[in-house]
């Protein structure tokens, strides 16, 4: 029995290690190939590590291919969408959780029902609308559809419902307005869920592809994923260059994730809780 147990233990640990390797190899190769000399990655048998470190592809991306601009576009949009949507969603969530008005439950149920409509349905009319408004190839084109979301309102409302009414009533008796209550009592108490939702929104906006591809048609407005997909068309053969571009796109998210993993994973749990 004892030896069977040990064999089983070794086998399971090796399996975990193997799956870990399969998960990591694409990333390791991406970083490694981005540091190879031009053409070095297209050899047979394939090389796993560069013969010497070559940073020229990164330099080329920033000096000749406007990578800094794409990076800033991605960063600015992710920050703007996250900030604005957190504010708007939490305000609406407060109304649904703590204010009293007619049709509240019906309105909220109606909002929830919108979640079944896939975003792709809205894209064409939205594109035409934003075109009429002159928002194509501007940050507004990305920010406007991202300003508010039903899922965010839902998540924040669930959390705010757990805040005791007595806290709010006491503040009201002291003469605090709803705006003051919202900013000084509710938002600080929602810190953890705001961080979670903020991380989801930030990463989601950073990684988003289809909508930026539609709205940002001028190369100076590209986000990193759109720039990368376009670069792929012209530089398919430059494996090392493409890998350097991929590293620049993925690395900020990986670093962010390393710091906020706890919040992200707890967010998955909350998101899957059904009412």
């Amino acid at each position, binding site marked *: 029995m004892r030896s069977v147990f040990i064999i*089983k*233990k070794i086998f*399971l*640990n090796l*399996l975990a290690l193997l*799956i*870990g390797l399969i*998960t*990591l190899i*694409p*990333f390791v*190769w991406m970083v490694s*190939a981005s540091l190879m000399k031009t053409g070095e990655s*297209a050899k047979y048998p*394939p090389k796993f590590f560069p013969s010497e470190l070559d940073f020229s592809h990164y330099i080329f991306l920033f000096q000749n291919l406007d990578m800094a601009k794409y990076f800033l576009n991605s960063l600015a949009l992710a920050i703007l969408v996250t900030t604005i949507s957190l504010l708007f*969603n939490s*305000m*609406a969530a*407060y*109304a649904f959780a703590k*204010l009293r*008005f007619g049709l509240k439950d019906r309105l909220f149920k109606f909002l929830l029902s919108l979640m*079944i*409509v*896939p975003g*792709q*349905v*809205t*894209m*064409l*009319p939205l594109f*035409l*609308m934003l075109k009429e408004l002159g928002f194509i190839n501007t940050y507004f084109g990305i920010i*406007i*559809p991202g*300003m*508010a*979301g039903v899922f965010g309102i839902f998540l924040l409302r669930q959390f705010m419902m757990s805040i005791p009414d007595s806290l709010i009533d006491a503040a009201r008796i002291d003469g605090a307005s*709803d705006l003051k209550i919202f900013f000084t009592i509710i938002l600080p108490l929602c810190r953890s869920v705001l961080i979670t939702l903020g991380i989801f929104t930030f990463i989601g906006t*950073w*990684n988003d*592809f*289809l909508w930026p591809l*539609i709205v940002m048609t001028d190369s100076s407005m590209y986000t*990193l*994923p*759109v720039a*990368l*997909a376009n670069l*792929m068309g012209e530089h398919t053969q430059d494996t090392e260059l493409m890998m350097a*571009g*991929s590293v620049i796109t*993925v690395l900020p998210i*990986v670093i962010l*994730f390393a710091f906020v993993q706890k919040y*992200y994973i707890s967010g*998955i*749990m909350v998101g*899957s809780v*059904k009412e």
Partner: protein
Amino acid sequence: MKDKTNFWIVFLFLAPALSAILFFFIVPVISAFLISFTDFDIYTLGDFRRLRFIGFKNYVKLFEDELFYKALLNTFYFVFVGGPLSILVSLSTALLLNSQLVKFKKIFRTIYFLPVVTTIVAVAIVWRYLYHPRFGILNYILSIFGINPIDWLGDPIYAMPAIIILAVWKNFGYNMILFIAGLQNIPSELYEAAELDGASSWFKFKSITLPLLAPTTFFTSIMTMIGYFQLFAEPYVMTQGGPLNSTLSIVLYMYQEGFRWWNMGYSVSIAFVLFVIILIGTLIQFRYEKRIHY
């Protein structure tokens, strides 16, 4: 304190989010529905007076469009092969990381989860090179086992499986987290009681773990499939829908018709077919959700 809140205060809190949702979600959905009954195309874009209502013609055309059938079929292939495969890998890795015999669980969990947060366009590009028929690492590893090189993205037979493998690798970590949570909610007394009766591991898995995980399995399956129906970036970056349209997906076809050829009426009708499919999935979930709970 039970009075209704002042209307203007409610308005102040609701207006920003609700007007954004109204003007930039609800209005576009309704417009999309109307546009799907018109011949909105590139000429209409120049002169709106050219717009004509054509009834159900776009939808009728869809039924006669071989390329649309191809896209539909490809997407179903991706959803119904890739979906269950993803769930299987998620469940297996969750069981693995839930085992008391495995060390360094937290590190493995983080590593397994890493692909989930990374940018799909970037990883699709990386995998495009991993799949390279001559220089790709995948074929190199296969050659060690004596398998001849496969033209992963150039062969209509292998292109969709290649995209499925990428999708499983990219996404399994997400549902794995949900399965781990589900496993940890199963009371350990159940297993202890079964062990007293001398039950085998397989028996315990089959009659305790699987039934008690059923709600999680059901939820993750539906959500994964709904997500997979929206396949776009992988074929856009890796194959542009080829070879021989073997990886053309519904959303990619919608994008090409709408934003490359500007056949907007037609493109929007494709989006509505996607909507109906997702709606059916959601309704199935609502219907069976209660029944499956233990």
